[in-house]
Structures are given as C-alpha cells and as structure tokens.
C-alpha cells in the first residue's frame, strides 16, 4: 500500500506533441482515484507513465515515497488491468493469475493460496483450469483483476477496464471493482472516459482535458461546484446547459438577460459574488435536472419562463425536452406525468440556487 505522487509530469512525443502538460497530483494511501476525460486528454498516458510503460519527458513520479522514474515496471510493485484484459491465451486462468508470482519465484503453495483466495473474492474458483478463450468478457475481466489481486501490489492501475463489456455487464463489474477495493483497500488509479464510472467508483475524480488537470475533487464536489466550463459540461448526464446571457445591474439587483427576452434575477445569496462581473457577457449554466416544469415547492429562488419544446424524449422515469435559445440547445428534465408535445409552449421553472455563471473567454466558473 502506498501513496502516489505526480510532480510536474510532462509527456512529449516525437514532433513536439505534448500529451501531458506538467500535471501535479497527490494520491493518498488506500485512495481510489479516477482519471476521467475525453479521448486524447492524456489520462491513459498518465497511467502508463505511473506503470512505467511510457517514459516521462520531465517531472517526477513517486510510489510509496520512492521516485520511480528510472525503475522498470517489474520493480515498481504495481499491477495493471488492461482494457483488452491482456490475458496470456496459452495459459490457463490459474497460470495467468499466478504468472507474476511464478516469475518472482514464490513457493508453489503460496501461489496456490493466493490464486485461490483471489478466485474466491472474484467468484471464479470454477474457472481456474480453463483457457481465456473459453471465458466470457466479464469472466476474462475478473481474471485480469485476479491477476492484479494475487500480486498484492502497492498500487492497482486500471486502464478503461470496462470499455469492452456490454452495458449491463459494465454496471455489474463496476460494483465488483468497488467491492474488491473495499476488501483489499489497495491504492487505485483508474482511467475511464465514462463519467458515470468515475462518479460511482472514485473517492476523488481527476478531470483531464488536453493534457492538463481541469479539476480534482470528490464526485459530489465536481457535480455541484465545477471549476471550469469543461468540468461543468463533462460531469453530469445529460450535460449542463450553457445559455449565452448578459449580467446587468439594475435597481440594486443583478439580473441575467437571456435570449428570447427572458430576464432572470440573480439570487441574493450570489449577488456579492457576481457583482464585479455586472455588464459583462457570461454563460448561464444550469443542469437539466434544475430546469423542470412548474412544481409546487417551497424553494425560494425558482424563476419561470416560457419555452417551446422542439424535441421530446420520454425516458419512462422522466421526460427530456429540448429547445433552442439563440443557437444554444437547452435540455430540461420533466416529470413523465406532464403532458408535453413538440411545438406547444410550456412554462419552465429554473432553480436558480443551482445556477452557475461562466466567463465565456477563460471558461472559469465565476
């Protein structure tokens, strides 16, 4: 068990392309950290640098307090689960799981004890004699995890381990991974592009974009207090709405002028925070779940406005409606009981206590 430190890590490929642009990250012992971001954001490269599979252009990586920049993967005491499982096709499940221990010349009894223990945790005890070919995708993923567990390493590294599974199995394996972490409590770095995986698994989520860390925080913190437009838009599904607006100071109160002549008041609790930005163009950010039909509620800062849905998506437990405001697509989540149809105007209610204002130039949340 160990903490992992990334200090000013840079990865530059031939031709000067920078995949990772000087990131700093401290991962505590026992912590489950998820690196999340779109394709090409540098998350997998970062993980591979921790594993020692990619050279670091500059910066320093330490595992358990020891700088590992020049230490080969086999001596870093880490275990990795790959997206394509990377099981040795010519070895049985037992041999696959015990391979790392065999190479390290562990006694056979100890290998057997550890493999059987891991197989019990992952419920694959009956598969030990099979070859990977005879396993389903989910079973292969369990074996890949088992191979990591038997090593009892300082750090687990997961590189998009659920991407090759179907949706149902992915949810099931997500729970398995969480359960395994709760059992073995090994420090874990997990890479995914799926924000739902990130939110459900992580103690802390690291949102990456274009080689930099946009924000690090607990899942709820990222959801409720995003630091940038990118994080606000990336975390949450459907994504947060961004509506161009102008912040005006009139008659002692701040107001937001939205397209279609909609004017919404800024809640008193936010006035002091937003006052310095009065008179500027901003982006009004609000999540679909905070944009609903008018409901009987005692929430103090609910503002209403008229909108005409253009697309209606009944989801069963909710109905998503989409409308456009000056080119910006806006999504709202309505109660499925509300009668709604495209083209028929509807009164929408916005919970302004949950709003965000974003500087459209810097992308920072104000």
């Amino acid at each position, binding site marked *: 068990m160990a903490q992992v430190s990334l200090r000013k890590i840079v990865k530059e490929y031939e031709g000067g392309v920078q995949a990772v642009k000087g990131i700093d990250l401290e991962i505590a012992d026992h912590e489950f950290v998820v690196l999340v971001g779109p394709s090409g954001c540098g998350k997998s490269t970062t993980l591979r640098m921790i594993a020692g599979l990619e050279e670091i252009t500059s910066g320093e990586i330490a595992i358990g307090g020891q700088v590992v920049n020049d230490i080969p*993967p*086999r001596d870093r005491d880490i275990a990795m689960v790959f997206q394509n499982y990377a099981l040795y096709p*010519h070895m049985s499940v037992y041999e696959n799981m015990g*391979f790392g221990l065999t190479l*390290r010349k562990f006694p056979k009894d100890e290998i057997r004890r550890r493999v059987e223990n891991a197989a019990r945790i992952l419920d694959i005890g009956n598969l030990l004699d099979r070859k990977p*070919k005879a396993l389903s995708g989910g079973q292969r993923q369990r074996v890949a995890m088992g191979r990591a567990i038997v090593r009892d390493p300082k750090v687990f590294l997961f590189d998009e381990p659920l991407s090759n599974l179907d949706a149902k199995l992915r949810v099931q394996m997500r729970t398995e991974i969480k359960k395994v972490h709760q059992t073995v409590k090994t420090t874990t770095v997990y890479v995914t592009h799926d924000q739902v995986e990130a939110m459900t698994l992580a103690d802390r989520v690291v949102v990456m974009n274009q080689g930099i860390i946009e924000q690090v925080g607990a899942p709820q913190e990222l959801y409720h207090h995003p630091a940038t437009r990118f994080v606000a838009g990336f975390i949450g599904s459907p994504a947060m709405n961004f509506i161009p607006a102008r912040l005006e100071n009139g008659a002692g109160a701040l107001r937001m002028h939205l397209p279609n002549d909609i004017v919404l008041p800024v809640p008193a609790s936010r006035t002091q925070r937003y006052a310095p930005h009065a008179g500027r163009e901003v982006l009004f950010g609000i999540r679909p779940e905070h944009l609903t039909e008018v409901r009987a509620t005692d929430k103090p800062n609910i503002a209403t406005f008229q909108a005409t849905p253009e697309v209606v998506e009944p989801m069963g437990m909710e109905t998503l409606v989409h409308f456009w405001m000056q080119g910006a697509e806006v999504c709202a989540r309505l109660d499925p009981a509300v009668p709604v149809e495209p083209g028929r105007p509807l009164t929408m209610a916005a919970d302004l206590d949950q709003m965000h204002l974003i500087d459209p130039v810097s992308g920072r949340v104000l």
Partner: protein
Amino acid sequence: MADGNVVMARGMPAAVAPPQKGTLHRIARRRSTLAFLMTLPLLAVIGGLVAYPFFYALYLSMLNKRMTRFVGIDNFTFLLSRETFQAVIWQSVLFAVSAVIAKALIGFILAHVLHALPAKGQRKWRGMLLVPWVIPPAVSTLAWWWMFDPSYSAINWVLTTVGVPPVAWLGEPSWARFSVILVNVWYGAPFFMIMYLAALKSVPDQLYEAAAIDGATGWQKLRYVTVPMMKNIIAITVLFSLIVTFANFDIVRILTNGGPQDKTHIFGTYAFQVGIQSGDIPLGSAVSLFMFPILAVFAIFVLRDVTRRNKEMTG
C-alpha cells in the same frame, strides 16, 4: 466450402423453391452438390498434379527395371540393403534437419532484429534480407558454385588474405556437406524470417506490457510470451521447410552433383541419378517415395498439435 455454400444459397432462389419431384433433380438442387461442382476444377487440378503422379510413382516403384513385371516391394528392400542408399538416408536427414534448424534459428534472430528496428528503416532492411529468397535458386547456386570454385574461390581468396589456408569446399566430403547446407540455409532463412516477423507483429503489445508488469525480463518475455504465441507458425514453417528441404534437388545437383563419392547425395538427387541417369525408373521412383512416410508421420503430429493449440487459443 462453407462460404461456397452460403453464396450458393443466396444466389440460388430456386434452392428455397418448393421441392421438385424426382431424386436426381433433388440431388442436383442440393447446395452440397452445387458446392461440389464448384470445387470440381480445383479437385481436378489436385488430382492431375498430385494424386496421379503419386500413385503412378507408387505403381512404377513396384515394377522391375524393364518395367515388364510386378515385383512388389523388392525395389524397397533392395535399396535398404545397399550401403550407398543407407548413406543417402543419413545424408538426407542430416541435410534437411540441420538446414531447417539453422534456417529457423537465423530466421528467428533476424525477425527479432527487424521487429526491433524503427518502422521507418524496417522496410528497407526487410527488402534486402529477402533477396536470397527471391533469386531463382539455380542462379544463386551457380554464384555460390563460383565462390566455392577451387581455382577462383572468392571465399578462399579472403581466407588466404587473412592467413588461413584455402579449403576444398566441394572436394572434401564434410566441407561439401557443409557447403550444400550453407547454401540451403542462405536461400531458405529469409522465408523463416518473414514468417516469424509476421507472427511477431501479430502478438499484441499489451501481452508484453502485462508481462513487464508481472515482472518478466526480456528473456522471460521471449520464453513465456513470444515463443508460445509463435508456436503454431514455428511448427507450420518448420514442417513446410522440412518437406521442401527433404525434396531439394537444385542446390545439390548444381554444387556437387552428389559428390564427392556420393557423400552429398540426398533423396532427390539420388533418385534422379538412379532413375533418369542410370535408366532404372522403378528404382528411382522407390527412392523418391522413401521420403513420404517419414514426412507424413511428422506432418500428422505437427498438424494435430497446431489444430489443438488453435482451438485452445483463438476465440
């Protein structure tokens, strides 16, 4: 065949039409019948070029020298009793086995060296290393013959220059054996190299990465990942090369013509000498058929292993 069936099924609306009366008509309409008819030209070619010569050689090998009388296996027992032929068996095995082992080892090393080269330079080297294999062997063997020539040997010139006495490459039995094997290895190693290179490229990088994290050294990656993943290609390449090397004719014929004192004769050249040059076609046929059972047994074992591994490893 399966694909042929599917294509026929799609392309033949009549196949799904209501059943016709008459057995012959029904048989003609069967997809398997149509598939058989489609493969008939290929079967005819195989029959004409492989099966017919094989059975004709078998028939010839059981005739007397004048081909007037059936003698059963007399030719085979006669051959086995002759010291020259016993030496030919030993020389053929020595020639084929040592040449194939050398080709496999050199091909394996070259494939690894090429695989490790950056992609940019790889193509150029790959092309150059394939040259021996693409030159017609009769032509390249003539060049080697010149290099081994007792009077004009370029190799001997180099040896003399560095103070080593010249060698009678094709005149002394053991050097002559070495020379024919060397030329065969020179000619055949690129084939192994290209096959192994293709096999190496098909091993997923992630297996090496997983092995590196599992704690494998470079040697252990080779032993536990590369070789097991290449086993099928290695087996098939060795089998194929062994068949071709056992049946070799041109290299020995051009370099030594079986000499000195028949010490480099192999099945192919000996069969030619006995059958064509000495005019005993039945005996020549019997010589050439000796390879068959040896290679057939070897092929059965290798192909059985390949099929088993394939079933175990591929999804």
